[in-house]
């Protein structure tokens, strides 16, 4: 099978989806720009034209609502935010409107909409250009949230998002863009709500998603060399979450490290921890679970601070070692 970069996989998927389904419209800041969203939208404007590839003014609140309105006419909008940080302007349309519309009118009108939300951090970009706020969306009833960790999943999940009848947040981390993996050329889908094991081991379960899966795998490899065998779960979907998979693993390992690229308080890691605490799993744990997340602080600019701000492999390895000592 071919090896392609993650960003190529997204670009190819968009081309194929738009080719196959005339209802698909791409809208959002930078979809015609040479740099804004990496190379993920290359060639779309020349192939599909300005009616279906819309690079709007900076009017996130309005244009997100516009995309919802488009969906009401039977279209399948994909709305892209080149950074999650800019989503706050659109929060009202996402949370009050897209998320509620189906329920609020007794199931008369659904919102088949993909909200492609890019995490773009590092490089001293500071607090308003670095955020990973997937947990905020997972909090809101009516939304689904997926977060692929590689190009194969990105393709399959993007297809599922576009085919889903609900508003789905497709979380996309730019730290993944240059990573390569095998990706089939033809379209296929990956079910929303299903996680996957990336590594198997009986000592500790690491639960991760999106980019952090890579750090978790690297950490697991290093732990293996030190004689600790780790299950690495890639959630792929944040909401709904694949708790069956977590149970399956934790029943064996009885030790849990949750890794998340977002903040700690009320974050994804907190939700997973709560679910575990509510289940039978908690009775048999050999050690209290440990979370590896961002500290509860805005992203700093300085690269010396970024180094300690973003958790990496080393932090995960030391956490796994710590939990094994209990």
């Amino acid at each position, binding site marked *: 099978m071919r090896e392609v970069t993650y960003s190529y996989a997204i670009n190819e998927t968009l081309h194929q989806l738009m080719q196959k389904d005339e209802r698909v419209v791409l809208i959002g*800041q*930078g979809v*015609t*720009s*040479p*740099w*804004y969203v990496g190379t993920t939208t290359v060639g779309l404007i020349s192939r599909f034209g300005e009616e279906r590839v819309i*690079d709007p*003014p*900076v*009017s*996130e*609140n*309005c244009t997100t609502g516009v995309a919802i309105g488009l969906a009401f006419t039977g279209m399948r909008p994909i709305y892209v935010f080149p950074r999650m*940080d*800019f989503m*706050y*302007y659109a929060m009202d349309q996402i949370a009050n409107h897209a998320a509620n519309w189906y329920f609020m009118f007794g199931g008369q009108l659904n919102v088949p909409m993909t909200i492609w939300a890019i995490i773009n951090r590092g*490089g*001293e*970009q*500071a*607090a*308003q*250009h670095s955020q990973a706020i997937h947990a905020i969306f997972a909090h809101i009833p009516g939304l689904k949230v997926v977060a692929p960790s590689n190009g194969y999943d990105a393709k399959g999940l993007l297809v599922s998002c576009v085919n889903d009848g609900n508003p789905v947040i497709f979380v996309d981390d730019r730290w993944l863009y240059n990573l390569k993996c095998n990706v089939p050329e033809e379209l296929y889908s990956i079910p929303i709500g299903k996680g996957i094991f990336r590594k198997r081991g009986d000592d500790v379960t690491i639960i991760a998603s999106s980019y952090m899966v890579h750090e978790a795998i690297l950490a697991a490899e290093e732990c293996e060399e030190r004689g600790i065998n780790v299950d690495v779960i890639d959630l792929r979907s944040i909401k709904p979450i694949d708790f069956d998979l977590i149970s399956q693993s934790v029943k064996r390992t009885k030790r849990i490290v949750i890794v998340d690229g977002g903040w700690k308080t009320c974050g994804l890691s907190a939700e997973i921890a709560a679910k575990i605490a509510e289940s039978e799993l908690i009775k048999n744990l050999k050690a209290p679970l440990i979370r590896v997340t961002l*500290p*509860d*602080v*805005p992203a*700093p*600019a*300085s*690269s*010396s*601070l970024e*180094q*300690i*701000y973003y958790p990496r492999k080393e932090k995960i390895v030391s956490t796994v070692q710590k939990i094994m000592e209990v």
Partner: protein
Amino acid sequence: MDIKRLPQEFIINLYETMLKIRVFEEKVADLILKKEIICPCHLYIGQEAVATGVCAALRKDDYIFSTHRSHGHYLAKGGDMKKLMAELFCRETGTSKGRGGSMHIASIDMGIMGSSAIVGGSIPLAVGAALGFKIQKKDSVAVAFFGEGAVCEGVFYESLNFAALKKLPVIFVCEKNHYSTHMPISKILADPSIYKKALSFAMDGALVDGNDVLKVYEKTKIAVDSARSGEGPYLLECLTYRWRGHVGPNYDLDKGLRSSEELEYWMKKCPIKSLEKIMVMNSILSEKEMEFIKLKVENEVEEAIKFAKESPKPPQTEDELMLYVFK
């Protein structure tokens, strides 16, 4: 404007301020190319007359609110150059202790109340400050700087309406530099005229040549005087051009976003060169005296770079301590 009415000293100061911004920014461009500055910098080259002319009409106790393109505003309002350079190097001695970088600088003592990298994000903050001045019966004014990109955000219109409704002493300064990232004005605004939008909110507005520092000063002075005397807000549209690309030291020509003819046209309208001509014509400064000022400014920038490079990086300790004020 009748240049004779202005003290020579004042005009020389305008010149020095614009030069400071220009030399500073060009050095920053070099430092980015050398990878000594890493944080994303949106350069102000070409727009110097706007910040300089506007801030020349302000007092120290007036507030300004800035954007991602913040360096010019900061220097024109009297911010310390060393601290700015140190912030671009993300050092502990920077305006924001290295936590903010280029897009987030402030100097509260000088009335520089911070800069938001969210397009349009700082506009309502200026409105709020103006409300505060009014409630406290202070005669200060607040200025919101923003680009024409921000005119596409709803918050711009909400801010105009609220400010006009409450007759607040706030000046909205739109720097129409022709681009919003990769998009020309024609692709983002149905009606490119910005100052006319003031009409819809029953407030005053004016269009000004944003490359003419004297005209910018003159119009701002009118706006500020009127705001100070309780006449309410003012919308100033300053027509200008950014020479470099949206972010970083390049020109965005290679990317096919604009033509070199267009850039050359605007470079001929250089705000600094224009003032130099006026000064020579009116015997305010000789070429030699201008050379002297240039050297002085270059020195100041070199000093700032030295200061920044010698400054420590933020210590890798618990940053949580910075999160809340303990009082």
